[in-house]
């Protein structure tokens, strides 16, 4: 099996490479979340690596080796426009909001809209309400958030980086969905290859290539 350009495919049948991008407003705890997941510490000052914005995690899921690359993004409003550069070719996105901050939830909703518009159903989304340890100050309604997540085909989780609650489960569930998605895509591609090989209408494939070329030219234009 050859390595394909589209991110999370099998690397020589040995395992899967997934890119997960973390999106959300500043100060909702994106970095703490991923640092807790990868290094199991809450205070970022205790992290062993030099940086806490690009982290790797290896796990084994249903007998497959999965390699997660987690990309943190800058949450400040003025960097919002740079989103497409980061989430390009990612397999999953974690949209973090702060349960005590309604605005951050609205921001997460905006990200969902944008991602669904730009990447369609190819990307697995997870909406995460962080800082659940501050339950007393919670302002975002859990039921509404869950309903919203279901309506856009995303999972919803409540986590606390401080208490290390719900994070492992959240990433595990996301991995499962990304794996399913990757396998589905691989099957589709094989079917398409088979069709292309069987039928004399090879032109269909050429058209697909043309689309890819358009995408790549768009990519170089935006950088």
């Amino acid at each position: 099996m050859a390595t394909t350009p589209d991110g999370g495919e099998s690397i020589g049948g040995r395992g899967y490479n997934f890119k997960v991008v973390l999106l959300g407003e500043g100060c909702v705890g994106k970095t703490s979340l991923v640092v807790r997941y990868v290094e199991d510490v809450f205070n970022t000052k205790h992290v062993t690596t030099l940086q806490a914005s690009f982290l790797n995690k290896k796990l084994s899921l249903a007998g497959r080796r999965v390699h997660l690359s987690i990309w943190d993004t800058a949450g400040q409003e003025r960097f919002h426009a740079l989103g497409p550069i980061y989430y390009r070719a990612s397999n999953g996105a974690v949209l973090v909001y702060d349960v005590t901050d309604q605005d951050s939830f609205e921001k997460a909703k905006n990200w969902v809209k944008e991602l669904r518009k730009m990447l369609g159903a190819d990307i697995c989304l997870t909406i995460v309400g962080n800082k659940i340890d501050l339950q007393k100050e919670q302002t975002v309604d859990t039921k509404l958030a869950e309903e919203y997540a279901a309506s856009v085909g995303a999972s919803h989780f409540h986590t606390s980086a401080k208490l290390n609650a719900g994070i492992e489960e959240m990433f595990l569930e996301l991995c499962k969905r990304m794996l399913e998605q990757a396998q589905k895509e691989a099957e589709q591609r094989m079917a398409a290859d088979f069709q292309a090989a069987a039928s004399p209408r090879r032109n269909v494939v050429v058209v697909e290539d043309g689309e890819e070329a358009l995408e790549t030219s768009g990519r170089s234009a935006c950088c």
Partner: protein
Amino acid sequence: MQSAARGPSPRVSEAELKCKNDECEFYGNAQWGGYCSKCRKIVASRAAKSESRLRHQHDSFSGHDRSGASYSSSGFSRFEEKRRQQTEKKPKMNVFKKSPSPKEPASCITLAASELEQLKQENASFFRTIDQQVEKDIAATCRSHVDKIAAVAELKSVDELEKQIQQVYKLLVNKMDAFKIYSRLSAEEKDQCLIYAENYIMTCLYTSLFCPPTTEDENKDLIIQNRIRQLSWVNAEHLECKISETEPEVRELVYSAITEILSMDSARAPNEKLSCVVRCCGAIFRLLQVAQGGPASADDFLPALIFVTLKANPPRLKSNINYISRFCNENRLVSGEAAYYFTNLCGAVSFIEGIGAKSVNLPNDEFDQYMSGKVVPVSTWDSALLMCESMRVINEQLTTLEDLEKRNGNTLSTASLLHQEILAFQDDICSKLDALVEQAPLILRPIKEPTELDSENPLTESLPPPIVPQV
């Protein structure tokens, strides 16, 4: 100030520009293999003699002038390599790309001979640990691909070339999986071979594929360069990044980050350019660690990268980015640490292109004034970059003075506080003492005189007689 002159270390020394013949005083030319015109003629005539037999065979076989020339010059490159091994000279930089070309068109492998040699030397220790045959096979494969692509480089569009190069990368992977001589290598070794092959190919094709005339790259370079020059007033505060510009340690790290990102332009292969970006980002993370005492998150990192990019104003920034995103192995640009940093650099450039009053937290009119150059805000950094050492020292010392003044004020206020405390303490003790004295007043009584029993005193005579014990 020209951005190229800003780096703390010059990138090309004069010695490197001189003719490769040590005894010659003239300047060398990259297209003449690093020789001056005189020395090259001598060398070429010698090479032509030794290779003439081969060339005749080849000419009679193909009858094609261009490929014949390229064949002979690859022989020339072999000769050159031999000579270089004898003299052990430092590789030269390809500076004069647009100078008049030599009479016969040279193949890009010859032109890149010195860089290739450097690449070989860098990887020599690696290939010593594995089969020498592998290196030869890779080099041969690469050369055939390079010749194929170089022949069509001027005819095809960039997108087509991009596809072709990516195809070559895939072929290389397949070859390494299929061929016997590679079967003994581990996955990591294969990966390193692959990187070597990619670097080999792109080092050769650099001149034809970097900033090709069919694209708008050059214009975009100029636009972004001017844009960054206009934004030279932006400092760390505007970007809300935690770089304290006066601290010597931080400044050193900023300098090294800038040097790394500037060196991106002189690297030839996309992978090498990418590792310049990685090293630049590493320096940024180190300086953020100094600044805040812990690993940086993306919230801090991106502003710092934007700051460094603005202050470095790397030459041919857009061309470099496009070159990497077109001709670097796609897999390396999708996942991995390097991909993340490269994406951040793209993000930083895109932010710089779209920078507005809002993004630097300034009111519109102030932003316009700065952009038009009517008003120049004071910045320690700018004076440092203008090579005005004394200005920098003054600024630094002013900061130190301010700091001292503050500390002095602190000391003074603490001293007066202490003074007041002492006074209060004194009062307190005094009042307490007074109270005590009042409680137990000191009354002086007249001194009693001792009675002298044995003296002749009328008083003692009135006393009763001593009791006599009765037996």
